[in-house]
């Protein structure tokens, strides 16, 4: 259980985290989503007691991260983004070391157990410097599991892994989410959608949306625009759509038409479909426009930029996001 209330972090004049509030429930994977530099790592460091918050309050596993840092640390497993490990130690020795500092009973057995959970038991006696990036990531993850933490905080654990490793790790995190409170940060939207039970979207130190991926999708879908493709020239079809009473606005976008309904809560698709069929045309595609997190995210950051009156600073991040997704 993680509860965050108005958490603020300032680095001198720069405010990295601007008073965010959210909750991560036990038995769930909470995705912490945002572009690079959004404040994800800073927030996570505050939650693990590594950084002191400038203002606000955060409770992790029932203890204040600031007042009771040591108690929080006992109950949290934290994997930093860079996964720092002692390269000259063997995986087992490293786990034993962390286990000893944590005061884990039956350290050796426990270390083997977590190594098995991350499918690395066969490399227990290998020096960490000889392990691949993915294996190191898993050693790091194993070290956070040693003491059966109530809360797991994983900072971009999939970064730098090859696709297969990414899949394995996502599977592992989903698995862990069943038993622990997992806070999982990523800047890859599809990943959050796949892994997380709930998502917190953060940009420029502010939360711009939170909820289950389904909820977020629904939020945009209702009242959302629809995309339409037909097998006649779009110029012919556009007046028909514009002339419909349900459609407030329609325009050509690429090889399709985007239509905005008059009433956002009612779905215009059945009416549009009927109108096309009446014309004797063939309907090639008809679907809601905002269907995945990527689009939700783009939309949200666009809205945030508009609201702030800024000419979206997030724009370059978004392009980066897109490229990540397409990979």
């Amino acid at each position, binding site marked *: 259980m993680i509860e965050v209330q108005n958490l603020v972090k300032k680095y001198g004049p720069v405010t990295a985290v601007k008073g965010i509030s959210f909750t991560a429930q036990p038995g769930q994977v909470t995705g912490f989503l945002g572009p690079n530099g959004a404040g994800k790592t800073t927030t996570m460091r505050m939650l693990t007691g590594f950084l*002191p918050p400038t203002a606000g309050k955060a409770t992790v596993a029932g203890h204040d991260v*600031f*007042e009771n*840092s040591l108690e929080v640390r006992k109950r949290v497993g934290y994997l930093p983004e860079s996964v720092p490990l002692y390269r000259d130690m063997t995986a087992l020795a490293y786990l034993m070391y962390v286990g000893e500092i944590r005061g884990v009973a039956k350290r050796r057995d426990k270390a083997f157990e977590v190594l098995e959970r991350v499918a690395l038991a066969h490399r227990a006696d290998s*020096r960490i410097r*000889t392990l691949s990036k993915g294996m190191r990531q898993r050693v790091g993850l194993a070290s956070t599991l040693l003491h059966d933490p109530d809360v797991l905080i994983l900072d971009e654990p999939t970064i730098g892994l090859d696709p297969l490793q990414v899949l394995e790790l996502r599977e592992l995190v989903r698995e862990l989410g069943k038993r622990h409170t997992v806070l999982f940060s990523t800047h890859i939207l599809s990943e959050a959608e796949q892994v997380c039970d709930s998502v917190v979207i953060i940009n420029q130190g502010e939360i711009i949306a939170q909820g289950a991926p389904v909820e977020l999708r629904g939020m945009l879908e209702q009242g959302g625009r629809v995309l339409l493709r037909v097998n006649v020239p779009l110029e012919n079809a556009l007046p028909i759509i514009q002339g419909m009473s349900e459609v407030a606005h329609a325009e050509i976008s690429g090889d399709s038409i985007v239509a905005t309904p008059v009433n956002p809560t009612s779905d215009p698709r059945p009416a549009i479909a009927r109108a096309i069929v009446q014309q004797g045309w063939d309907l090639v595609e008809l679907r809601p426009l905002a269907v995945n997190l990527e689009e939700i995210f783009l939309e949200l950051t666009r809205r945030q930029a508009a609201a702030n009156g800024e000419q979206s600073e997030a724009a370059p991040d978004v392009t980066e996001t897109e490229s990540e997704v397409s990979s």
Partner: protein
Amino acid sequence: MSAQIPNTTPKEQEPFIPPYFMLILAAVGFIVALVVLLTQPQFTVVGWGGLGLGLLSLLAWVLMAPQQARALVTGRTALYGGTTILVSGLLIAALIGIYAFAKSRNVRIDLTQRENFSLTEQTRPVIQGLALEPNVPNIKIIAFYGAGQAGTRDQDSVLFDDYATTSQGKISYEFIDPDRNPTVAQQYNVTRAGQIVVVPLGADNAPVVDKAQTVNFLSQADLSNAILRVAASGDFRAYFLSVEGGLELEDSGVTGMASLNDSLKSRFNWNTQQVNFVDLTNPASGITLNDPAADGEALVIVGGSSALGEDQVKVITDYLDAGGDLVLMAAPINVDGSPALAVTESLNNYLFEKYGLRFRDDIILDETQAFQTPFAPVAGTFDSTQFVTSLFAGVRGAAMVMEQTRSIEVAATAPQGVTVTQIVSSADTSYAKIDPAVLSATEIEQVRAAEADTKGPFVLGATAENATTGSRVVLFGSMFVPANQYDQLRSLNVFNLDVALRSVAWVARFDEFFNQIPQLAEENRPEDAPIFVSAEANRNINLLTVVVMPFGVLLIGFLVWWNNRERAR
């Protein structure tokens, strides 16, 4: 300060004085202490006050705001560098405070087995004895150590502390920088840093500079002996009788006795005085012979070219009969043949009768064993048991120059209860002439040994002690024995002045006074012995230290590295 410490519970009742006030107070206290420390030569009451205030306020603050204090030290609440610097400063100040306090407690332990910095088993009872002796004055050790000798000061203060505690405070010590206090240094004739002066303290605890003893290099034996000398500066008096043609006490010329006088006064702490016969019998002169208040006294007669009157002889014989002590150094025979003081018949007979010794009216010459002239024969035979000469008997080439000396006749059997010792004798080649004409001889033949001359060796110095009366007498054939000129001949092992000094000391039993307080010699400790290695052992040591140890470590390192590498594969 406390503003930076968040989460002070507002519900808590505000104390009468806000806790941070205590912190400010502590800081003020420490600053005051620091300023005093840095600017004042002594860490005065103000400094201690500041330090105490600082520590107490800090303590009060800890008691008033325990959470804050804990939070500050365990350090989760101190958010900014400023607080960190403040807290570190307070910690360091507190540590310095404890350090200063510990330093003032003066806790030292000398762990050396050779007891370099504490009193040896030999010294300790002596110093303890001084503490118990009410007549011993308070004594101060003044170490004139320069600014560059801070380490030596630290070291030696450990030894001085032991003197102070062992003597139950009778001995105190002080360090004075001779460069900063040149006047004080000059007062004690200190010429260089590192000299130590031991000085008795008078009634008002003011140092009696005249009686100060100087130790040039600190050694425990030397320092203890200096302390003993200062402590034992008992009441010893030497009366030098003014006689016709005698040597003068204050005369610093070639034939004066200033050197002897100086030694008696500065080295032995004696009172010396030039007196005449009238003074000896006149109570108004302040001189009391055989004064029971004195620890020892000596009547010294050096020279005297004319015979004494009977009343004068009586003064001397009465004095001796009452246990008085006499040193008599005879003037040479007179050219006109008249008797000199030493051969005044009544005196000479008295000495022979009571002490088995008398002067002959002759002059001893020696052509071979002589210093520059046959009139100054060299006496090289010393008695090795008598205090006066024992020190020199064993010294190679030790000699006395006996200028224009008489010989001494020693009775075949000493009088009852009298111990006679011949302490100095001339060489075989010496001979005695009785004709004073030799003094005005113009031909060398007149000086050479003649058939009629008695041949040496002759007794030129002798001591006698009457066990019954305690009276002691030392006779020397030459009045030039204590002359200043022999000071420069010490390097040639001419010990005239030393023998003269010891003669005066012996008759007054100054040696016994000293001997009853043990003279401390440098002790030889096993630690002082040099190392000894055989060639073989040396080779083994070389092998062990240069090859086995370093390369062994290197080998172990290599093995560990290799083992690691193998395992990493």
